[in-house]
């Protein structure tokens, strides 16, 4: 992380973040940086705290201590709410509204234009379903409506929690191409994923385990540092290099 030099201030800086999800300590002094204008992948096993971290970044998570700075301001600041787009892990859309009505409402809240609604419908390939009730869509279609809502108003930072789950390979490739187009036009993206082959499509990777960042590197840098052929092998190598600090081995009171 210390090697990263960027001309503009980072999109997200997290310093020594401690957070509990429910009653359970999840993030134990986590620090990371998301540079601007890149697609940064957040990879890690189920339950390691990816969603908790993303909730902290968009300002809907109660945090115990630490600093989360987003686009130069404290996370959750009112002025950030229109500048950060968030896709929750489970599609958050109104099932009893059509695709277009969902987007019309989100656009009204964001102050986005009518043209913008058509733009995000096209970007997520939802034109054939625009008049359909969201509750009658397939899982992948619903999650694309959720994604489309976050694209409205062209936010400077997109926080996407597993946006490609349940999508076929063609659509997945299309969406990753869209993410890179957005990054090229200056948007910063933080995208979580379980799918290791998606990791290689990211500009940078954050590997997480048990509420801590194990590695922060480019995919190529990660492979050469670990001497492994793919991200999955690199991840496994990193895990065996860093002895587990599972809750059983953690001292009582240490969070």
């Amino acid at each position, binding site marked *: 992380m210390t090697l990263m030099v960027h001309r503009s201030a980072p999109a997200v800086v997290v310093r020594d973040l401690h957070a*509990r*999800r*429910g*009653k359970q300590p999840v993030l134990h002094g986590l620090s990371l940086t998301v540079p601007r204008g890149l697609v940064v992948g957040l990879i890690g096993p189920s339950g390691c705290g990816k969603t908790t971290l993303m*909730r902290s970044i*968009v*300002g*809907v*998570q*109660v945090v115990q201590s630490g600093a989360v700075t987003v686009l130069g301001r404290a996370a*959750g600041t*009112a002025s950030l*709410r*229109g500048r*950060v787009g*968030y896709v*929750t892990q*489970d*599609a*958050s*859309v*109104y*099932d*009893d*509204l059509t695709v277009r*009505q969902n987007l019309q*409402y*989100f656009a*009204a*809240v*964001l*102050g986005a234009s009518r043209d913008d609604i058509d733009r995000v419908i096209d970007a997520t390939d939802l034109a054939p379903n625009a008049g359909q*009730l969201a509750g009658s869509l397939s899982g992948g279609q619903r999650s694309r409506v*959720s994604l489309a*809502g976050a694209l409205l108003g062209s936010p400077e930072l997109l926080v996407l929690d597993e946006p490609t789950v349940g999508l076929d390979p063609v659509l997945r490739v299309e969406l990753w191409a869209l993410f890179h187009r957005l990054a090229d036009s200056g948007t910063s993206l933080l995208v979580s994923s379980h799918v290791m082959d998606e990791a290689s499509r990211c500009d940078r990777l954050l590997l997480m385990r048990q509420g801590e960042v194990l590695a922060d590197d480019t995919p190529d840098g990660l492979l050469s540092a670990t001497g492994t052929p793919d991200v999955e092998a690199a991840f496994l190598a990193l895990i065996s290099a860093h002895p587990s600090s599972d809750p059983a081995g953690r001292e009582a009171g240490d969070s």
Partner: protein
Amino acid sequence: MNPRRTLATAGRVLTQIRHDPRTIVLLLVVPSLLIGLVAWIFSDTPVFDTVGPAMIALFPFIVMFLVTSITTLRERRTGTLERLLSMPLGKGDFILGYTLAFGLLAVLQSAAAVGYAVWVCGLTITGSIWLLLAVAVADAVLGTALGLLASAFARTEFQVVQFMPALVFPQILLGGIFLPRDQLPDALRAFSDWLPLSHAIDALQAVASDSQDAAYVGGKLLIIGAWIVGAVVLGSITLRRRTP
């Protein structure tokens, strides 16, 4: 708070309900049918003329409380609330948007309930029917406002069902339906003075029998209005952007 976002929220809630025929029936038809049932039970007695006004307060109040709290809780469970709270929507925009949408439905519902009670069930109204309608609307909006408050506190649909006994049942028991409020034991009588439904029932009975002047009914309307404003404000404050 921002009028555009408040109105967009109200419009969105109404569009959702338009797509849900069962909720429309529950809101608009069920209170009238229940009033009809009470009228039928007492059809060979003069009782309906005494309890009828209270029924106009009771059923719309309960139905609005239930529908409002369940609709907003569904919003919490499906993650749309989390999404909205990460967007530039004020907490007040959210609560007030819901109040406006359900307030509009309350007007329709109360008109149906009052019309059905008076013209179909033969409830005798000596006072002004418009004043009766105004109190009925305020009472239904009160149900909505308390439902919003309950769901701002509750975390699950089940908890709303748990709030029913706490928030709604005492108001029904002490509202003067079972025993006129002035015959209640002193302590209960004093307590019932603090419950908004008591005032709604008082006002409806006063209009029905034309036993009090307009100032009395206006005073009762003010009390109900204060409860509505209080519940909406408290609900907006209780709603948290950040959750654990």
